[in-house]
């Protein structure tokens, strides 16, 4: 389904491209030996390079380069064996050098592609224009004092990857799916933690609108949107604003805007009017970055299995439907947990338990998978107990709840509570006979043609057996005795 918006003059299409700033996972900064850890005391993770003291020479961090290359490989992108660093010049209080070291004409990674998964089960390819390395700026606190801003340079100089998409995105939903997939890939690769609340992933959203079949119209850039939900809202809000401007006979001006999440609208950032003249020029402190093809190959050989490949393998090896596979690979930890449960067992049954009772228990107790009281090994044992007919499905739910509560081994729980399934036909015969004797009226109705009562008898027998009857045997004996 094509996403469109209706205006007074007809139907409009939305065109979106995203620039994502992803903070690189590394111990030290891009060009200095200062630490990158989040939440340190202000200005304690700052070297003279980061504070732009005169005469300091930036020296690039090899791991940051490796992380950018890994990300490029994960995005099926071209790795440029020679890239360069430029200075992007602008004045701001948290940018001590008055320029940001970035890559302009010669980025480290060229064109690539991301396959996004849409809620209706279809997929779409979104082009990646480029990925380049650059420095983050420091942090300004504006709400501490009536007339002063506070500057903390801890973040200044931390490595960022700017990942630019082609304007291939056509709806808020696709924008959300793109960010979700990109975040997933970065987290699998271990190149960015994708934590949007802490600001380690932020998006600039480029939006324009057009009548179907037209060329692109002027776009606006909505800066620094910090959640997937807000990006989706910003796309729609900005598209509606532009449609109104065009339909009132106006012209959309290319400009930088801010998303106001409280109001759900965008507004102009007037201070940026002159900021676009960045006067890029090659950084004279930095030689070209030249990569050894063998080193790149080595990084490629050690890439982890990525979400799309993993989902395809889960479908093939464990017989999962596409939906289950997508849900299970969303997080690496979930995928690992699932695989530990499924290995050597019924893959679909394992998926049902992990996505059903197990996820529900995590949600209910507010725990992450790492904090789960139920290990993959014990959940696997529980499935074994079901499959070798030690317990039936209903009792299994009861055992599972006890596992969530106590973290105990399922075998121990079954033994301690005496929950083993009764497969002794003598005991089942007796229970059935007793139930039928007690409910002679219902037996008569059943025999008179009221088939639906069969379920009632099953329930009564199971109740009499404290839920431990083997359901198949109970059904069989009931059918025989009811004749």
């Amino acid at each position, binding site marked *: 389904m094509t996403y469109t918006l209706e205006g007074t003059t007809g139907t409009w299409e939305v065109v979106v491209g995203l620039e994502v700033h992803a903070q690189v996972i*590394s*111990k*030290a900064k891009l060009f*200095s*030996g*200062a*630490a990158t850890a989040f939440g340190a*005391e*202000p*200005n*304690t*993770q*700052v*070297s*003279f*390079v980061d*504070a732009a003291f005169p005469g300091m020479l930036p*020296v*690039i*961090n*090899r*791991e*940051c*380069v490796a992380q950018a290359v890994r990300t490029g490989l994960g995005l099926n992108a071209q790795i440029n064996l020679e890239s*360069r660093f430029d200075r992007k*010049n602008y*004045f*701001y*209080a948290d940018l001590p050098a008055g320029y940001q070291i970035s890559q302009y004409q010669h980025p480290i990674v060229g064109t690539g592609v991301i396959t996004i998964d849409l809620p209706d089960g279809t997929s779409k390819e979104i082009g990646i224009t480029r990925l380049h390395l650059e420095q983050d700026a420091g942090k*300004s*606190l*504006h709400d*501490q*004092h*009536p*007339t*002063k*801003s*506070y*500057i*903390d*340079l801890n973040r200044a100089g931390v490595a960022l990857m700017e990942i630019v998409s082609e304007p291939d995105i056509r709806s808020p939903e696709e924008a959300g799916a793109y960010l979700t997939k990109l975040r997933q890939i970065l987290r699998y690769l271990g190149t960015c933690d994708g934590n949007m609340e802490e600001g380690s992933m932020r998006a600039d959203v480029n939006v324009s609108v057009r009548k179907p079949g037209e060329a692109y119209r002027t776009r606006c850039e909505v800066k620094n949107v910090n959640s997937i939900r807000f990006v989706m809202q910003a796309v729609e809000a900005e598209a509606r604003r532009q449609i109104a401007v065009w339909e009132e006979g106006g012209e959309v001006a290319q400009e930088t805007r*801010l998303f106001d999440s409280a109001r759900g609208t965008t507004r102009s*950032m007037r*201070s940026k009017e*002159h900021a676009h*003249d960045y*006067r890029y020029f*090659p950084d*004279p402190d*930095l*030689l*070209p*970055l*030249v990569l050894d093809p063998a080193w790149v190959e080595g990084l490629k050989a050690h890439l982890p299995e990525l979400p799309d490949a993993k989902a395809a393998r889960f479908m093939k090896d464990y017989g999962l439907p596409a939906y289950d596979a997508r849900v299970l690979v969303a997080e690496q930890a979930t995928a690992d947990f699932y695989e530990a449960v499924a290995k050597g067992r019924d893959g679909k049954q394992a998926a049902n338990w992990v996505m059903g009772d197990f996820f529900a228990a995590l949600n209910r107790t507010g725990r992450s998978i790492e904090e789960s009281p139920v290990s993959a090994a014990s959940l696997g044992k529980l499935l074994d107990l079901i499959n070798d007919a030690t317990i039936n499905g209903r009792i299994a739910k009861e055992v599972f709840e006890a596992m969530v509560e106590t973290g105990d081994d399922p075998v121990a729980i079954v033994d301690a509570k005496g929950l083993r399934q009764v497969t002794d036909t003598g005991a089942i015969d007796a229970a059935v006979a007793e139930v039928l004797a007690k409910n002679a009226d219902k037996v008569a109705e059943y025999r008179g043609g009221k088939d639906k009562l069969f379920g009632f008898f099953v329930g009564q027998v199971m109740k009499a057996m404290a839920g431990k009857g083997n359901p198949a045997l109970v059904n069989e004996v009931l059918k025989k005795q009811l004749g």
Partner: protein
Amino acid sequence: MSLDADTIRRIAMLARIRVGEDEVAKLQGELNGILAWIEQLNEVDTDGVTPLSGASRLALRMREDAVTDGDIRDKVLANAPERIGPDGAFFAVPKVVE
């Protein structure tokens, strides 16, 4: 290439250097002189020559990913016109807010 007076004002604004109206003409002459001097390079025929990005043909040297610096807050803040906040941990600047 020649810079007009408006371009001089714009360069000054971008560089955050205050230039009085009486200085514009003088700067225009000086900057145009510098540009003309550099433009002599255009006389060299560089067709078919790969652009050189530095005087040395070396590639960038890299550092290992280890924390070897930082934790020198007082030194970093030593030249700050004003320190603010608990322990004077921050640089203070006139409020810049969108």
